[in-house]
């Protein structure tokens, strides 16, 4: 694969409510990403917007941010899925050799909708929607399934939440930086057993933009491009009952592909930092298993051991992850932005020392049906 480097990033501060419009959010991160890259909008020759009609409450939702992202000036398309898929589309535009510098922008004003109703719409109209399934109670079905099979405890899941909210204190963009204990998590309001409030990501408004360029341009225009070394995406079956909810084979396959491209045969040794999509506390455990950081069923021990803490062997979610800020559609792109900061050495008080290779991950659909994995390198 030719080398494509990320040369500009920007995120808004994530918050329960941001009064800015979709266009204003998109504009803010577009302008700041351009500043970060030392470019102007005229330098961008193609864009990818990431907008979802349901979350935005409009058909052709990408129209709301066309002008704000300069997408009216150049070839553009809109990916409706997590931001990582948008980044992949931008990457493909560049690898084709037809375009030189891509801008990818994702935004979300989750505050304007009723998340349960919007996520209920992911489910089968005939067989599942009528049951009142949404992102939370479907995740609860998965969490219990996973815990039940491997004997993972609620405490171990809670430890993920404790870690990530604490990490978020060092992240100026995070929505929920907090000092909490395992006990706080266990005592928090039960939403759908075994998922409790503090096992759950918040509802956040926010936006993120990244700018990527082909190698020659990246090197010419920026002091520290962060290279995309590998990428993979993959999806599991749709109906919850068709899947084995205790595992994520689609993530394993996506990671395998990304690892192969990046020359990673020992993820634990070769990856220095990982930002994974922990929409719920238990998900971080499931995802690190499928990413090959440990054997299936053993992620509980891993989190107990402290391996994924900031001072551990492989810090996971130094930014606080999705548990600390969840702008839907944006969060995967934010994972990429955070890894870029890490590899640039610009992550300030959430910096993982000497990070050279990082993993960024996004999910799509219920209970992590689809996955997209990026391997980035300094």
């Amino acid at each position: 694969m030719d080398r494509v480097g990320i040369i500009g990033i920007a995120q808004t501060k994530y918050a329960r409510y941001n009064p800015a419009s979709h266009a204003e959010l998109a504009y803010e991160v577009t302008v700041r990403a351009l500043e970060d890259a030392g470019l102007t909008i005229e330098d961008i020759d193609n864009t990818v917007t990431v907008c979802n009609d349901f979350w935005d409450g409009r058909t052709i939702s990408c129209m709301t941010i066309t002008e704000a992202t300069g997408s009216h000036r150049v070839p553009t398309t809109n990916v409706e899925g997590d931001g990582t898929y948008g980044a992949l589309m931008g990457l493909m535009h560049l690898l084709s050799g037809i375009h030189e510098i891509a801008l990818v922008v994702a935004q979300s004003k989750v505050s304007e909708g009723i998340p349960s109703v919007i996520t209920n719409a992911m489910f089968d109209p005939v067989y599942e929607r009528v049951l009142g399934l949404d992102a939370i109670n479907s995740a609860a079905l998965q969490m219990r399934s996973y815990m039940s099979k491997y004997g993972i405890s609620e405490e171990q899941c809670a430890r993920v939440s404790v870690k990530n909210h604490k990490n978020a204190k060092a992240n100026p963009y995070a929505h929920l930086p907090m000092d909490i204990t395992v006990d706080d998590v266990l005592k928090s309001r039960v939403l759908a057993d075994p998922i409790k409030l503090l096992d759950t990501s918040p509802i956040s408004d926010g936006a993120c933009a990244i700018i990527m360029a082909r190698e020659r341009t990246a090197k010419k225009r920026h002091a520290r491009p962060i290279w995309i070394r590998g990428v993979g995406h993959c999806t599991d079956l749709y109906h919850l009952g068709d899947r084995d909810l205790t595992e994520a084979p689609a993530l394993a396959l996506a990671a395998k592909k990304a690892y192969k491209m990046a020359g990673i045969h020992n993820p634990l040794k070769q990856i220095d930092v990982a930002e994974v999509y922990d929409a719920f506390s238990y998900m971080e455990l499931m995802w690190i298993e499928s990413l090959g950081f440990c054997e299936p069923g053993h992620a509980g021990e891993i989190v107990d051991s402290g391996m994924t803490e900031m001072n551990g062997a492989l810090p996971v979610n130094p930014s606080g992850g999705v548990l600390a800020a969840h702008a839907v559609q944006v969060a995967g792109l934010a994972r990429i932005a955070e890894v870029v900061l890490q590899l640039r050495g610009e992550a300030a008080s959430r910096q993982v020392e000497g990070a050279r290779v990082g993993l960024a991950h996004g999910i799509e659909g219920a209970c992590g049906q689809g996955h997209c994995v990026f391997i980035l390198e300094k």
Partner: protein
Amino acid sequence: MKRLVGIVGVGQTHHKSRNADCNGQELISIAVKRALEDAELTIADIDAIVIGNMDHFESINCADMWSVDGSGSYMKPIMKVTTGGTTGSAIGHAGFYHVASGLFDTVLVIGWEQNSESDTTAAISTCFDPITEREYSAGAIGPLAAQYIAYMSKYGATEEDAALVSVRDHNNAALYNPYAHLRQIINVEDVMKSPYISYPIKLLDMCPRTDGACAVIFASEKKAKRITKTPAWIIGVGDCHILVHLADGIGLPNLPSLENAARQAYRMAGINDPFNQIDVAELYIPASTAGVSWMEALGLCEEGGGPRLIRSGITNMGGKLPINPSGGVLATNPIGATGLLRIGEAALQVMGKAEKKQVEGAKVALATGFGGCFWSDVTVLSSSPSLE
């Protein structure tokens, strides 16, 4: 070094106003199976899938995830692209980029829509700004009507000119396209007598709402050459989403985004004389009026020359540059698929597989996509990897 990408298979459903006997996934699977059969491949040969539709019509969130049983995406990479009316052409271009990037060799692109499940106009109206535009928006038809009024006023085009486009496309569908939704033989008088929907657009000037799906398989050069002796090479692509607000586009007699996208695609393809270099065109003409006023944006005639071009018969089957042998959008409009059908039909032409719709000796084909807000995508396809 740019990689060559070819289309190796096309499949579509028999389009209807309401596919009561199958659900969305089944609709998709029919198109997918037919495309695979056309290319003599199985789903195992597919490396990645791109899917698109317009959400509000079926009310399914994360439709790519939902589609798995029908799209064959189990344990495969799939992503969703949606850009409104241009979705079909946007996914076609996305499929092209999947292969052109070198990351995937054989990519299945699926466009589909079950328009029968929704109130199309109401759904489309939600694309406009809730504060400044939505109250007076009139779905897709209003803006198109306003545009032709501007064109008629500036260049002396008439409703009869538009009627000729409608007659051409409907009759092509009736005579040559067994998959088309509307297959009626009509004449200018029929069109002129049909009731006005939004002056000057009448019922027979306007595209229908259709349930349907289309699947197109893109492949890398090496794979494409192994799969078929006659891939349809994609030699030019262009996209332009130049307008965002209704008021910016209404009252313009032309379509700036189409001109812009065509310029990109023609430059890539090496086309500098489109009228003579293109053998057949599958154009996204959502209302017959557009079939008069948008031709110059494609460089097919001089400014204001739409009426002359249409009245000459050049764009009819048997003419020098047949447009819409399939019947186009006026005959079939499953929105998420419509733009992809143009690419698929254009591909079948240069592959020599268009059967009754075949334009003899077609070597270079043009396909366009259109959607709100006055956006355009253009694709140039050829039976050889480059124009001679």
